[in-house]
């Protein structure tokens, strides 16, 4: 029973920890499927978290926070688009720049506006997206097994967490069942095919990076208004890059992205849980190894030792009409 409770607890934190990864990875999926590489997920998520914390602190409304987060993240996405789509700049360089701009300005603005060492004020009540009890969670909580799974594991997450998981089938549907998705996938593989079919490559890619902005804004909001009670400096702590790793790991497909994020979230939860204690069979596993595992796995995958991660063919290459 002890073990079972531990397991439920572990899985519960796995879900919580994978939500921001999932949102950011899905965000990256839109841009990268359209042929725009985005290593600026981290920065957009961070800026979103700050905007959410700041706006929620000032207005007292979590929804205002969400709006601000999405707004700023979309703005940064458009900067990325302006550099890499309109001006055909280097997408990697642009992504790096956005990460730095976000890292610096969130601290500077946070300190200037709130003077709490880069934090935003602590939030509570309506200024956060608190946990939601699913229907009958209360009633079922006493039932063995079902109660544990339903009331403790599935119930009690924030609205954004549910949205994040609903976005997985939604993204799949958009990608494979809508006109927009068809064109999005096409422009990431062969923009010339899209161009000769009479569709604007630039506009299509702009729409994709806007989707990325919206989702990274959501990811930031979750960090600042659900997982925490406000913005803390550098609170993304590399999650944008783990999300990128998850995206590669899942070979740019929505449902595998969810499993990759759950896996990486589990590693995180597990390493927190076993910190300092030994493991049965394996013995002592350094927590740092668990933390590095997502990156190691991604490198192994990229090396082609476990399957082959083939990015969208046109990824990273600005579209220039052939002459």
């Amino acid at each position, binding site marked *: 029973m002890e073990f079972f409770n531990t397991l439920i607890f572990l899985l519960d934190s796995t879900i919580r920890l994978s939500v921001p990864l999932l949102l950011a990875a899905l965000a990256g999926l839109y841009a990268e499927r359209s042929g725009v590489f985005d*290593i600026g997920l981290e920065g957009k998520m961070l800026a979103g978290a700050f905007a959410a914390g700041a706006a929620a602190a000032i207005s007292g409304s979590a929804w205002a926070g969400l709006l601000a987060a999405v707004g700023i993240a979309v703005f940064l996405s458009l*900067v990325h688009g*302006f*550099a*890499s789509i309109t*001006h*055909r*700049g*280097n*997408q*990697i*360089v*642009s992504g*790096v*720049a*956005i*990460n*730095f*701009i*976000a*890292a*610096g*300005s969130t*601290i*500077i*603005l946070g*300190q*200037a*506006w709130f*003077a709490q060492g*880069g934090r935003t004020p602590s939030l509570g009540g309506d200024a956060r997206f608190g946990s939601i009890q699913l229907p009958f969670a209360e009633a079922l909580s006493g039932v063995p097994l079902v109660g544990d799974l339903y009331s403790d594991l599935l119930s009690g997450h924030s609205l954004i967490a549910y949205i994040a998981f609903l976005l997985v089938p939604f993204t799949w549907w958009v990608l494979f069942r809508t006109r927009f998705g068809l064109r999005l996938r096409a422009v990431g593989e062969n923009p010339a095919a899209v161009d000769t079919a009479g569709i604007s490559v630039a506009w299509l890619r702009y729409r994709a990076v806007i989707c990325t902005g919206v989702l990274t804004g959501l990811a930031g909001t979750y960090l600042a208004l659900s997982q925490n009670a406000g913005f803390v400096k550098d609170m993304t702590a*590399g999650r944008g*890059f783990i999300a*990128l*790793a998850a995206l*590669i790991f899942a070979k740019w497909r929505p449902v595998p992205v969810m499993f990759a994020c759950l896996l990486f979230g589990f590693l995180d939860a597990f390493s927190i849980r076993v910190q300092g204690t030994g493991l049965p069979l394996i013995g002592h596993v*350094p927590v*740092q*190894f668990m*933390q*590095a595992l997502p*990156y*190691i796995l*991604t*490198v192994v995958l*990229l*090396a*082609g030792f476990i399957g082959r991660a083939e*990015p969208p063919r046109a990824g990273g290459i600005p579209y220039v009409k052939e*002459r």
Partner: protein
Amino acid sequence: MSAPYAKLPAWADYGLIPLINLTVAFIVAGLVVLLIGENPLRAAVILIDGAVGRGQSIAYTLYYATSFIFTGLAVAVAFHCGLFNIGGEGQAYIGGLGVALVCLTFDSILPWWLTFPIAIAGAALFGAAWAFIPAYLQARRGSHIVITTIMFNFIAASLMVYLLVNVLKPAGSQAPQTRTFLEGGQLPKLNWLLEALGLSVRSSPFNLSFLLALLAAFLVWLLIWRTRLGYEIRTRGHSAKAARYAGVSETRIIVITMLVSGALAGMMALNPVMGDQNRLAIDFVSGAGFVGIAVALMGRSHPAGIVPAAILFGILYQGGAELAFEMPGISRDMIVIIQGLVILFAGALEHMFRPGIQGLFASLSPRSIAVEAKQGERA
């Protein structure tokens, strides 16, 4: 041949356009200062004064610049081969391990001037080793080097925390760092150099590795522009087809370039580890690897541009620290913003102003009026 613009003179290409890009980056940074209710001009004055106003501050400025020269060179060497090494941060971190192992081993038996060359080798070797795997994977398996070097930054961070906490930390100590090196593992300071110029320096971390950095800059110039290897690196960077034609092996050139790049990044560790803190501490790189990207882009990958660009960033780091005292709203993180803006405008948007400038030149110079596309703008 598709660009219907006038050709620019070299001074505009290498001087004017970078200057415009840089100016725009600083104007936007000034807007951020305005946004937090401070006067950007006053901030600039404080910053510059804080960085070069006194001997003491100049010493600090050059101390920071030392690290940035190394990491800037590292990024630049890779750029010359058409590779983007984002892993300077991790390579420098692991380079620090090399320095520390050498110092911990020899500091009690050798004088510093014998430890130093071994430490240089250790730093270079460890940094290069950390760059080797991404390089090999890029060359042989086509794994995108940008992604693998990012991953290796994080793996390096975890590895170093593990080693510092579990292996290198002296028993009974709480802080995750090695013991302090003895004198044989400490580089002499260079404060006398500034004092010889009539400046007064009380104490500063400015040390011998600055001269090593300048030497490295010279050697990189020599390597890239004066050796057969550098010639091959540049050929590959400009055109993979031409490199093939010239009989340059793709695998070999990618791996060698990245080893050099990683070695340079690793040598950055000498400056803080052996030159200042005299021990290996957690997070000692603190972003210098990333500053190298901005420095290389700003210096257009040429050592003669990288050294001043590194000093500029040294000024920003040192002056930014001073600025934080005077203007509580502004911390050193302002520099991170500027760094990002420099990368954005000098890197990703480097060609944004080019058409305009070219149009301007076309309209000013009667000989290049053949340029039809600019008629609209002139009208």
